[in-house]
C-alpha cells in the first residue's frame, strides 16, 4: 500500500493541457522531489494531489483509497500542504495560524481541546517558532513565516506532506534550516516537494521525478536522474555534474552559456593544451561558434574542458606524440575552420606537429593568443617552435592578448 499513487492523470486548465499521462508513487517515509523547468507542471501536480485541481483522466490514491472519496475534512487530516508563501490580509498571530491546522479535527459546534493545544505546541516546537507564538504573522520575516506554515502543516498531523517550492523565496541558510526540519520528521510522514534548486533536490531527496513539458521525463534516484544529458534535454542548458566532495551526492555546476548565439555555424579550430585554452574554448562555445580542438592528449586540462562543453576534440594517448591518424583529423578540422586560434602553450616534441602543420596553410587566418600577455610560447623543442611561430607571424598571423580581440578577428574572418 503506497501512501501516494498517481495513475495516468491528465490535467487541463480550460483548453490548455498542463499535465499528460503522469504516473508516480511515493514510498512511506521518503522524500520525493519534483523538478523541471517553469511551466512543466510541477505546481499543478502538487495541486492534483491536494485536490485543488481535478484531473480529467486518471486516478490519485492515498493509501489505496481514491482521492475523490475523501471529504475535505478527511483529506486535510491526511495531506498537508506548505505553499511558497502566503499573503495574509489580517493580523493573525502565529499561534492563530498554527491552530488553524487543527481545523479538520474540530467539529463545527465544538472548540479546541487540550489535545489540540498540545499538538499545536509540539508542531511549533518542531518548526522552531514557539518563541513567535504571540507575534503577528505580518511582522515576522519570510523565513519565520515559512516555518510557521510548516508548523501549521505539522499541526494537521498529516501522513503526507506536500511542499510547493516551500523554500524558494528564502536565503540559503533558511532553506537549509527548513529542509533539515523536514528531513528530521518521523519516518511516518511521506514528503513530496517541488524544487527549483537542483542541488538541494539532489541532497535532500531519496528519489526525483523530472518533468518536461507536461510529462514525466525521468524518475529515480538523484544520481540517475540528474545527469548532464537529462538536464540539457529538460532545461536546455549545459551543466557539469560532479560529485559533492562531502555528501557524495550529485552536484550541478551550470556552464552559464549565453542563450543568444551570435556566431551560429562558424567553424573555429583551437590548438591549445595544458589549460591555456579552457577559458577561450568556453567563450567561443558560448558565443555560438562551432568549435573544434586538438590535437590534445587525453588527461590534458583543456581536453577535460572540451569534453565537458561537448566540443569535438582530436585526441592522442597520454604523453604520446601526434600520430599520422590524428594529423589527418587535424587537417580536416583546419580545412573546415574559417580561422585557427593557437594559444600560448608549452610546445615540445610531442605536440609540435600541431603548429608545424599550419605552415602548409598560406591563406588561413591564424590568431596567436597570449592571454593578457602573461603567457608566452614556451619552447621545449630546441628552438624549432620559436622558429615556426616567427615564420607564422611573418606570413600574417595576428596576435591577440585578450579574448575580445580574438572575437574581433574572427568576426572579420567570417
Amino acid at each position, binding site marked *: 500500500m503506497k501512501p501516494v499513487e498517481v495513475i495516468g492523470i491528465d490535467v487541463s486548465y480550460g483548453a490548455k493541457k498542463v499535465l499528460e499521462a503522469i504516473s508516480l508513487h511515493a514510498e512511506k517515509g521518503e522524500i520525493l522531489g519534483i523538478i523541471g523547468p517553469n511551466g512543466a507542471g510541477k505546481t499543478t501536480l502538487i*495541486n492534483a494531489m*491536494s*485536490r*485543488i485541481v481535478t484531473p480529467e483522466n486518471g486516478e490519485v490514491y492515498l493509501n489505496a483509497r481514491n482521492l475523490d472519496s475523501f*471529504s*475535505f*475534512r*478527511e*483529506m*486535510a*487530516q491526511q*495531506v*498537508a*500542504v506548505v*505553499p511558497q508563501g*502566503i499573503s*495574509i*490580509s*489580517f*493580523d*493573525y*498571530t502565529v499561534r*492563530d*495560524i498554527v491552530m*488553524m*491546522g487543527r*481545523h*479538520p479535527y*474540530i467539529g*463545527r*459546534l465544538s472548540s479546541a481541546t487540550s489535545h489540540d493545544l498540545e499538538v499545536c505546541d509540539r508542531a511549533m516546537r518542531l518548526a522552531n517558532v514557539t518563541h513567535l507564538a504571540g507575534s503577528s504573522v505580518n511582522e515576522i520575516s519570510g523565513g519565520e513565516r515559512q516555518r510557521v506554515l510548516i508548523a501549521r502543516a505539522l499541526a*494537521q498531523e498529516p501522513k503526507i506532506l506536500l511542499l510547493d517550492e516551500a523554500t524558494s523565496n528564502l536565503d540559503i541558510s533558511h532553506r537549509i534550516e527548513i529542509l533539515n526540519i523536514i528531513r528530521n520528521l518521523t519516518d511516518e510522514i511521506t514528503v513530496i516537494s517541488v524544487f527549483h534548486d537542483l542541488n538541494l533536490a539532489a541532497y535532500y531527496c531519496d528519489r526525483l521525478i523530472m518533468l518536461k513539458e507536461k510529462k514525466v521525463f525521468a524518475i529515480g534516484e538523484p544520481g540517475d536522474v540528474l545527469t548532464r544529458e537529462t538536464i540539457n534535454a529538460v532545461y536546455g542548458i549545459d551543466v557539469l555534474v560532479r560529485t559533492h566532495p562531502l555528501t557524495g551526492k550529485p552536484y550541478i555546476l551550470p556552464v552559464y552559456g549565453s542563450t543568444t548565439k551570435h556566431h551560429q555555424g562558424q567553424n573555429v579550430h583551437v590548438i591549445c593544451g595544458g589549460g591555456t585554452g579552457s577559458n577561450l574554448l568556453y567563450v567561443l562555445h558560448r558565443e555560438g561558434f562551432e568549435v573544434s580542438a586538438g590535437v590534445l592528449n587525453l588527461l590534458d586540462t583543456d581536453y577535460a574542458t572540451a569534453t565537458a562543453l561537448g566540443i569535438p576534440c582530436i585526441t592522442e594517448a597520454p604523453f604520446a606524440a601526434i600520430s599520422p591518424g590524428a594529423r589527418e583529423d587535424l587537417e580536416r578540422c583546419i580545412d573546415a575552420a574559417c580561422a585557427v586560434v593557437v594559444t600560448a602553450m608549452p610546445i615540445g616534441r610531442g605536440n609540435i606537429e600541431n603548429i608545424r602543420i599550419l605552415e602548409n596553410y598560406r591563406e588561413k587566418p591564424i590568431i596567436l593568443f597570449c592571454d593578457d600577455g602573461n603567457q608566452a610560447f614556451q619552447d621545449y623543442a630546441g628552438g624549432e617552435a620559436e622558429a615556426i611561430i616567427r615564420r607564422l607571424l611573418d606570413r600574417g598571423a595576428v596576435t591577440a592578448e585578450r579574448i575580445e580581440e580574438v572575437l574581433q578577428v574572427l568576426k572579420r574572418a567570417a
Partner: protein
Amino acid sequence: MRRTASITLLALTGILLASMACAVTLGPASMSLGSLFTLPNAWKIFWDVRLPRVIAAVLVGCALAVAGTAMQGLFRNSMADPYIIGTSSGGALGATLSIILFAGTGRPVFAFIGATITTFTVYTIARQGGKVPVETLLLSGVALSMLLSAFLSFLMYTAGQSLHQIMFWLMGGFWNVSWDDVRIATLIPVGCLAIYLYARDINIISLGDEEAIHLGVNVERLKQVLLFASAFLTGIAVSIAGAIGFIGLITPHVMRLIVGPDHRILLPAAALAGGILLLWSDTLTRTFAGDMPVGIITACFGAPFFIYLLRSRMKA
C-alpha cells in the same frame, strides 16, 4: 487575548444596553425614564414610537455589521460591505417592487431575493480565474448599485411616490418603523448565529481559497452559505430601514483593530458595535436633524473613512 476579548464583549454589551436606555429618553419630546409611569402620553410615545425604533435600529445595525464582517473575511478585503458591493441596492429594489406590485406584501422576501441576486451577480462579474480582485469587486459593485438605484428611482417616480419615499430607500431611515418591523427583525439574530457557526471557517478562508481547501474547508459551499446569509441579513435590514451605507464597512474594521481578526470574537464584537453605531446615528437624526434619512449621517462619517482606507491601501 481571550481575556481582553471577553472584557471587550462585556463592555460593548454594557454600552449597547446603556445606549438603548438613553436613546428612548431622547427625541423631539425629551423625557426621563421616570416620567414613563407618570405621564400617559409618555408611555405611548415610548411604547409605540421609540422602543420599536430603537430595537429596529440596533438589530439592523447588527445585521449590516455582521454581513459586512462576513464579506470582508470572504473577500479577504477590508473594503467590502453590503452597501458598496451593491447588496443593499438590490435589496432596496426588491422591496420597492413588492410595494409597487403587491402593496408591500412579502417585502422582506423580495428584499432578500433582490439582495441575493445582486450579490451573486457582482461576485460573478468580479471573479477572474477563481479569484475576486478588490478593484473589480468594488467597481462592479458600484456600477451595479448605480444601475439598480436608477431603476428604483424610476419605478418609484413613475408609480407616483413622493421623493421623500425614494430618498428613504436610497439613503435609509427608521421614521415609519412599527412593531411589525421589529417582528421581521427578530430573524436577524438567526442569520447572525448562522454566520457565527462558520466563524472558524471564515478565519481560514481569509487566508485564501487554496489554503482553505488544504485545511479541510469546503470552500465553494462556504462561499454560498456566507453570501446567502449576508444577503439574508442585508435583505431584512433593507426591507426595514432602506439602504443604509457604511455600517458594514466601518464596524468590522474598527473592531478588528480592537479585538483582532479572529472571527469567533470579531463577529459578536462587530454585531454589538454595529448596533451601537446605528442606534446613535438614528438617535442623532431624529433628535437634532429633523428626522432626515439616517444614511446621510452614516455616509458623512463612513465615506471619509472609506477614502482613508483607500489611501492607506494605496500606500501599502
